[in-house]
């Protein structure tokens, strides 16, 4: 682990820090895949090596320090991971996470066929097929579609932006969290847009856009009961840019004055507040309809994570009394 950083501050108004780290982890527990003829699909060994490196930056400012106090804080983390060794193997397909692990690459690299829309004449789903010389053509056979690297599930940069404002007895806190870059696979939506593969399952209202007539331009393939074209199978059809900004918390509090007569004789201090958490999230990708609690693998409701729940939006009213 290598870590170097600098803290700074000037004019008693601005402050911050910059840190760089580089951490090598060797002998990581890793499920080394085996040919299935061994009767096992993997064996766990201390066999993987990765490097995580990145910058962490904090910038802050005491903008106002008079009657109105306004403080602002911005932090940003740029973290990159790189696989160094996989027990001598390479390009391991991590089916349960829809990732590919390659030496020199990220362990969060999505790997799946690339969606090429819907054929307006037939209503068939289309994917890209890439031949040996790199020519890209479209195919309506899922088995011919080419698996491609589709980018990481982890963001390029993430962090928070906090503002605190005070005026007399009022305090206001606004906290925003942001993620820039990264992908998310929305399997919840995929399950609802099954095109008839699982006819007993619920459907999303977007299924009404399914292709019906030659010439129709739509991004939803034709519907058929027990659809066996794999049109709803894993592809970038359900992969989205995960860039987002989230209004994480707003808290407004009021500290009661200490000259409230009889009340102040019983209660030494009192503070009341209202607070809202997870108010809303804006995604850069307007087509994304999934939940906003993204995890590091970016696979909602897929395989290893069959159950996803939305983060609740909570409103709190509170009082803190000191006797």
């Amino acid at each position, binding site marked *: 682990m290598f870590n170097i950083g600098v803290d700074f501050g000037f004019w008693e108004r601005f402050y911050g820090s910059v840190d760089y780290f580089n951490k090598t982890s060797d002998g990581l527990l890793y499920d*080394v*895949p*085996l*040919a*299935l*003829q*061994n*009767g*096992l*699909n993997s*064996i766990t*060994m201390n066999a993987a090596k990765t490097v995580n490196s990145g910058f962490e930056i904090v910038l802050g400012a005491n903008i106002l320090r008079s009657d109105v106090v306004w403080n602002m804080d911005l932090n940003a983390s740029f973290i990159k991971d790189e696989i160094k060794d996989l027990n001598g*193997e390479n390009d*391991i*397909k991590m*089916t349960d996470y829809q990732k590919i692990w390659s030496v020199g690459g990220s362990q969060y690299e999505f790997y799946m066929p690339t969606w090429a829309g819907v054929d307006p004449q037939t209503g068939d789903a289309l994917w890209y097929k890439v031949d040996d010389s790199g020519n890209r053509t479209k195919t309506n056979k*899922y*088995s*011919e579609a080419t698996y491609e690297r589709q980018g990481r599930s982890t963001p390029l940069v993430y962090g928070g932006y906090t503002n605190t404002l005070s005026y007399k007895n009022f305090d206001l806190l606004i906290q925003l969290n942001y993620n820039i870059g990264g992908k998310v696979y929305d399997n919840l939506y*995929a399950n609802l847009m099954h095109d008839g*593969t*699982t*006819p*007993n399952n619920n459907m999303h209202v977007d299924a009404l856009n399914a292709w019906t007539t030659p010439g129709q331009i739509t991004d939803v393939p034709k519907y058929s*009961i*027990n659809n*066996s074209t*794999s049109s*709803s*199978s*894993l592809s970038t059809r359900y992969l989205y840019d995960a860039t987002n900004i989230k209004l994480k918390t707003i808290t407004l509090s009021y500290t009661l004055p200490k000259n409230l007569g009889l009340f102040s004789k019983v209660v030494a201090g009192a503070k009341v507040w209202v607070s809202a958490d997870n108010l809303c999230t804006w995604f850069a990708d307007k087509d994304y309809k999934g939940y906003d609690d993204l995890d590091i693998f970016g696979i909602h409701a897929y395989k290893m994570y069959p159950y996803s729940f939305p983060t609740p939006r909570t409103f709190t009213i509170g009082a803190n009394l000191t006797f």
Partner: protein
Amino acid sequence: MKIKYFALAFLMLPFMSCSDDLLYQDPSTSLIDENIFESADNVNGVLNGAYSWTGHYYYMTLGQISLDVMGNDMKITDGTYGFSTYNWLMYAYAYQQYPRVVDGWWSAYSPYIWQTAYKAIDQCNQIIANEDKLPEGCEDILAQAYGLRGWNFLNLYHLFCTSYTNTGDEGQGLFLRLTPGDASGENVGRSNLKASMQRIIDDFTYAYEHCTDKSGNYFMNKKAAALLLARTHLDMGNYDLALDALSKVGSSYDGSDLMSAEEYQSGFNTINDEWLWGFNYTSETSNIYASIPSFYYIAKAKDDESGFGTPGYGTKVENKDYLSENAVEYLVGYGTVRANNSFVGIFGNGDCRKLFPFYVNEKDGYAVAKFSSKGSLGIADYPLCRMAEAYLIAAECYLMSSTQKDEAKAKDILNKLQEKRNGTISTDVTIDEIWKERRRELYGEGFALPDIKRLQKPLERTGEDHWCSVVSLPANSPRMMFPIPADELDYNKQADENDQNEYWRN
């Protein structure tokens, strides 16, 4: 004072560590390599593991039912007539399979089938590869291990290979793993069919020659090994060798070693004298919902008045609710396998094997009552080879052999089976007539697809009740099998993309 010591002890905690002696590293519920060979009982435990994997629902249920529903006669309901498939087996029926799971486990049954088959083979290999370390009294156990491995290889041949009758010695065969699994990466590549079939023949031959038949017909035994050897030779079109193997089975071909019509109808869930080998599902060894009867059986008859032989047998029921209120011996898990209408039509009316008690919709096909549970769902015996097959193999061999050809004998043997089943008596014996009889006799026992491939017939699914888009395939179609799982080819340095089955090769 006391508190001081206490605090001291607490502070010392980080400096203490657990000694290796305190950690039991051997599992308490399974055998480890070192003690496997301590006693014949332990070796038998390994063998039982092989049986257990062989009967596992990832393999036996998926594999055996797929071999039937990938043929012409049986199908999986499309799920819209009251019996949801939950995507079990329907994509085998629909010929929609990938080398790896692409979305939903049902998109690739083959990794489940393959890995479980090799778990069974691995346990057999643990015994066979350590032949010289076996303690006293393991002769029969070793012979069973050979026979069971042979069955698994033969089954993998049916599921994953082109037919020997089509591609001959040079066709793509099996991955003949003969040593226990390990992490060394020493894997075997794909053999050709010549080596593969020879391995199967050798395994069954060893079992035949060395089984002492101590264990009974729930386990591999002499006669079963001989019949399976005949099955293998028939698969290769070696009629004389098949007849030779049949002579070791020792059927009288007079019908006396076949079960009665009543036994055939009693639900096909209890082993009887005609079964040479059957799998015994108990509450411990069976996943009840994923058992074979769970997928086949719904009820014996739709109501009290509509039993076998009555006009109401094989007629329509209005809906599933009618069944839950009125059906006889109603015991349904999934209940999703159906017999195609045209298949039901090839049975004579009195034929005791015509166990298709009702249908819910004309387009859905008939419910099948052949395989039922013994009172509790999934508790049943399932046949892996029966004497009736010996009759069918013999008839075919006497018809087809160039050196022992005897059409009269072929006809006589076939007729004996037909008489016993109150079936339609063939007057003219042809290969198609025998095939038809095989379909009547053996449906649901994993022969439909292997027979189509062996006889080089096209897939011809007729009737509106076949809902999937694959209604026909030419003879010897490269689709009549599963893909080799990608996880075998990716991590096996002795194999590459060319070892994939043709249809799935990029």
